């Protein structure tokens, strides 16, 4: 009872729920058609019909309907309001496969609400199935297949229909995974024509293929013959008999066959002529086979009239034909051991095993006979393929036959010539070349009749000896290929020996490759000689083991670090090459590639650097320079030697030995050595105190031509003024070119010779209180400071007086000659313009002065001095307006002021009264 109540409650609940849900899911309208399937490219129209109830609830009508496809609103232009409740939409040329079409309204004018939705499916109607064909596999049911035509994009059913004239068979529905074929579910009935066709159907239509009418027996694919067996015949070594069991379909129809066969090692099949197997049978004898050869057979069958299908191939079966006597004599050759004794020689007779197609069976042994010239016969039976015998130096004839179970081969005859036999008549035009993956050899036959040819070949290698293989060819052969296991990239030395009736001819050899390849290793290049602009490269020929072909040429690639690579081709016969036009002092990288016909291989890179100078170039520079230096030095020495008196005079002048003096020589009548008349005129008191020498360093900023002008001026002045002495800075043979000038201003001299040590002393007074009629200039280059006791207080006073005078640049020496003893004013007229004079000129000047002295040419100091001063004054006057020069003077004065603070250790030595004080 309780259960009943519970059940009733549940049922009531379900009823109520169902009712309410149904009410809730009740749509406000619907779309017609509900599930449309449209042909692609066609037009489609859908209608949405609203329910009155919803229209009242939402206060809408058909004008409020809008359509959406795949959530995109359809343009209003495609709408048509049919009446108050219905609106339609039209699509032209439907292209999409599936369209979600929804009908929507705007409730209360703004709230979008979906009314109904459908899916529009598009596709194509089925095309007419083509190429309908059926097959009846023996023992199975009939299967038909066809081409379904284009894709329909719709679910399309294919039905295979079949019928007799009096019966209709059940339809064959295709499976989903095989829509283009169907296997009927009834066994085929042979010898009754059946009509078959295919119907294709989908939502957009159906179509039927062409009907085909056939007898199933004409569509049979038989099972292959089975239990194929092969047997041979002892009577005939060229036949094999095949037997098999036919498929059971043989009871229904007549069969024909295809029998194929091949030798065991072949890949292609031969076929028995079809007309020989065009009828039902269960055995066949195959003829014209090779003796003692294994053959493989296979067979297939089909309906005799050719209607239907060939069966699959049967399983293969093999059989061996019976033996026959060897069809050919073995190849026969010999080798003579070179280390034979005096009267005997060791001869090895060698022969080749017959190939199976010539042996025609298993070779049991070989029979060898040896016949010395008109001597008895020696017989040997050998199982091996060689026989070594000791023969005399006479001529022998050897024969060879191979024997198998059935019989003996023909006889091979070989003549072993006597020891003194001279081989002649070689083949000519011997060539070897690869072709069709074989190494062919061809030659021109000698004029003599050749019995046969022996071809020997071996691999040339640096690592292993040449072990020859050989083969025999008939005497009529002009070309053949080497029948050995030849390897690619190996160099073969091939020798052809014609064999005549009286013995072998002279062998000819040629090298060849079966297939060339790039060398396995490139040549290693190195430099033989490196010059400034060229380098001689050398390399070794590649070993034959790595050549892999004929080296046709080399290519040398060389480059600098930043430069492009340059390639040079070199003939393969060369082993060195000279690179020219190289840049000196440059690192070069060079590598070399060896090429065969198949490509190249480069060797390791080698670097070298060209030298900066060519060989001997340094010597060519250094030696002349050294020689020039040496020559200059020598000339200097010679010059110094020649002028040693002058040098001596300047450097260490002869100090007159008072003890050897003669008063007569100091007679006032002695002509004056210097004529300072002009000076005397200028300075009437003739009271010269001393002369300082100041060395002036050339001012780089001063234009050189002006210096030269000054120099000329100075020279003129010097020449014309005998009372002046230069020689300062030119005391040595290799004196400096620093110009110097004399000055009479002893104060300046005192200031500026302290560092340069060159100073001179003008001996104004006569020797030992004698008053010379001329001023004598002497010079000292001593750097030794004067002792304080030797310095005169007047000199110190003069130094003090310099303060007010013009300053002088350090290291500049001014030669200032003052004709007035009280010259302290910095008047510009008291200055001598400094002139740069070269040392050579100065030497000349000194020399001239010497000469002037020696010639006793007397000139007035005052006149000469005046002349100079006049010129300088004129120059100063001319350039007085030039501020730069004035500035320069000021600068000098400033420098001089700076030098005042320095200790005055080197002071000009002054000999006041006729004495000379050695320094």
């Amino acid at each position, binding site marked *: 009872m309780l259960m009943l109540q519970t059940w009733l409650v549940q049922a009531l609940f379900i009823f109520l729920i169902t009712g309410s849900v149904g009410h809730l899911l009740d749509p406000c309208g619907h779309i017609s058609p509900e599930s449309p399937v449209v042909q692609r490219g066609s037009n489609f129209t859908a209608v949405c019909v609203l329910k009155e109830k919803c229209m009242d609830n939402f206060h809408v009508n058909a004008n409020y309907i809008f359509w959406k496809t795949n959530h995109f609103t359809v343009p209003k232009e495609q709408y048509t309001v049919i009446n108050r409740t219905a609106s339609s939409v039209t699509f032209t040329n439907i292209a999409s496969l599936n369209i979600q079409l929804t009908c929507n309204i705007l409730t209360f004018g703004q709230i979008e609400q979906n009314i109904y939705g459908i899916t529009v499916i598009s596709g194509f109607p089925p095309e007419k199935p083509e190429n309908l064909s059926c097959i009846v596999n023996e023992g199975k049911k009939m299967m038909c297949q066809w081409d379904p035509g284009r894709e329909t994009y719709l679910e399309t059913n294919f039905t295979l229909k079949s019928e*007799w004239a*009096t*019966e209709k068979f059940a339809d064959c529905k295709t499976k989903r995974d095989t829509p283009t074929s169907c296997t009927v579910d009834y066994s085929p*009935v042979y*010898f009754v024509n*059946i009509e078959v066709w295919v119907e294709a159907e989908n939502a957009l239509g159906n179509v039927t293929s062409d009907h085909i009418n056939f007898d199933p027996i004409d569509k049979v694919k038989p099972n292959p013959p089975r239990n194929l067996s092969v047997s041979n015949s002892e009577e005939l070594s060229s036949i094999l008999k095949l037997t098999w069991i036919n498929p059971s379909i043989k009871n229904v129809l007549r069969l024909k066959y295809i029998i194929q066969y091949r030798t065991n090692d072949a890949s292609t099949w031969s076929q028995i002529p079809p007309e020989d197997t065009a009828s039902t049978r269960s055995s066949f004898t195959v003829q014209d086979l090779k003796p003692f050869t294994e053959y493989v057979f296979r067979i297939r069958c089909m309906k005799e009239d050719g209607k239907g299908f060939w069966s699959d191939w049967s399983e293969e079966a093999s059989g061996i034909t019976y033996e026959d006597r060897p069809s050919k004599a073995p190849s026969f050759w010999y080798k003579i051991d070179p280390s034979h004794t005096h009267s005997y020689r060791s001869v090895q007779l060698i022969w080749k095993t017959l190939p199976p197609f010539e042996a025609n069976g298993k070779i049991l042994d070989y029979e060898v006979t040896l016949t010395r010239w008109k001597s008895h016969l020696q017989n040997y039976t050998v199982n091996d393929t060689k026989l070594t015998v000791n023969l005399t130096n006479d001529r022998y004839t050897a024969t060879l036959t191979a024997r198998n179970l059935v019989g003996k081969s023909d006889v091979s005859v070989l003549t072993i010539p006597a020891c003194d036999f001279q081989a002649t008549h070689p083949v000519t035009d011997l060539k070897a070349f690869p072709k069709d993956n074989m190494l062919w050899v061809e030659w021109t036959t000698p004029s003599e009749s050749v019995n046969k040819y022996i071809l020997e070949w071996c691999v040339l290698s640096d690592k292993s000896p040449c072990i020859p293989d050989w083969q025999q060819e008939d005497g009529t052969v002009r070309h053949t290929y080497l029948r050995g296991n030849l390897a690619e990239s190996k160099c073969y030395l091939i020798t052809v020996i014609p064999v005549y009736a009286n013995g072998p001819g002279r062998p000819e050899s040629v090298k060849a490759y079966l297939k060339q390849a790039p060398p396995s290793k490139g040549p290693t290049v190195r430099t033989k000689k490196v010059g400034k602009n060229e380098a001689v490269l050398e390399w070794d020929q590649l070993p034959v083991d790595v050549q892999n072909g004929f080296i046709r040429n080399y290519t040398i690639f060389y480059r600098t670090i930043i430069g492009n690579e340059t390639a040079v081709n070199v003939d393969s016969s060369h082993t060195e090459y000279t690179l020219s036009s190289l840049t000196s002092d440059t690192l070069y990288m060079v590598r070399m590639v060896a090429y065969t016909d198949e490509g190249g291989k480069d060797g390791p890179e080698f670097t070298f650097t060209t030298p900066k100078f060519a060989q001997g170039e340094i010597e060519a520079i250094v030696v002349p320079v050294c020689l020039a230096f040496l020559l200059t030095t020598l000339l200097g020495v010679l010059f110094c030697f020649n002028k040693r008196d002058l040098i001596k005079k300047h450097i260490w002048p002869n100090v007159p030995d008072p003890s050897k003096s003669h008063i007569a020589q100091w007679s006032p009548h002695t002509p004056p050595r210097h004529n300072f008349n002009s000076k005397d005129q200028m300075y009437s008191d003739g009271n010269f105190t001393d002369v300082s020498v100041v060395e002036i360093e050339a001012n780089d900023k001063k234009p050189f031509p002006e210096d030269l002008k000054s120099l000329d001026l100075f020279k003129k002045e010097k020449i014309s003024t005998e009372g002046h002495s230069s020689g300062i800075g030119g005391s040595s043979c290799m004196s400096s070119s620093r110009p110097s000038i004399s000055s009479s201003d002893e104060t300046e001299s005192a200031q500026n010779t302290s560092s340069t040590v060159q100073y001179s002393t003008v001996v104004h007074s006569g020797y030992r209180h004698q008053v010379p009629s001329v001023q004598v200039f002497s010079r000292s280059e001593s750097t030794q400071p004067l002792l304080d006791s030797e310095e005169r207080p007047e000199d110190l006073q003069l130094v003090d007086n310099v303060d007010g005078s013009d300053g002088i640049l350090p290291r500049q020496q001014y030669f200032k000659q003052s004709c007035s003893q009280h010259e302290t004013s910095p008047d510009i007229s008291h200055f001598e313009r400094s002139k740069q004079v070269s040392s050579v000129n100065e030497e000349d000047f000194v020399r001239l002065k010497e000469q002037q002295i020696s010639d006793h040419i007397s000139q007035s100091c005052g006149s000469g001095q005046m002349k100079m001063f006049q010129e300088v004054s004129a120059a100063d006057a001319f350039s007085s307006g030039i501020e730069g020069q004035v500035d320069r003077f000021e600068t000098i004065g400033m420098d001089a002021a700076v030098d005042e603070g320095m200790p005055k250790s080197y002071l000009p030595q002054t000999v006041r009264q006729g004495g000379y004080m050695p320094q």
Partner: protein
Amino acid sequence: MRAQLTRRTLLGLVLGLLIPSMAAMGNCSSYRVLLHQLQRQADLMQDTSTLLDYYIHIQGLDTPILRGHCKERPGAFPSEGTLRGLGKRGFLRTLSATLNRVLHRLAAFQRRSPKAQYSEKLQMARLYIQGLRNNIYCISQQLDDSSETAEPTQLGPGASPPSTPTPDTFESKLEDCRFLHGYHRFMRSVGRVFSEWEESRSQTHSPQQALSMGARRARLSSGDNRLMPRGQLPR
């Protein structure tokens, strides 16, 4: 002319009754092909390995004595002589009627068959018989009886309905064995008749001529049959 039309209509009606749903379905082969197919079908169906041998084997009748008892009951199937004596249309009608009877009998066999494999053989045999009847229908469609004289359907002793199987199981097996034996023999005779049709066709090269030749032979056969007492099978 009117009589000929009536006879053709009658033949179609008879075969239509014998071969259900023979409204024009499918396309029949040519007369030559049909004749060849009929001959080949007869050759297949005379092969005792298709039904009898297997039946003897599965029913345990494969002993010489029992095999001796498994012989065709006289009169169960028309004799070869009877068949030869019929005209082509008569032969075809007789053949079709006999095959219809065999079909029913094989259906009964199939219902009683203890072995599924044998049931398949029976089904196959039935299918072949139906195919044969289809070809009979097709070749009868192509026979022009204008040259053939009217002849009654042979319903002689060979065409008599088979005797009802006895309830005894062993006897029933033997009876079925005899029936199958007779069936194979009958089909062998049919094959021979068709081969004669084939030979005559190769000589005359037309169904009409073959038909007339068949009629003449039929008359001769009738004459021969008269030599034999009715109700007896030729020995």
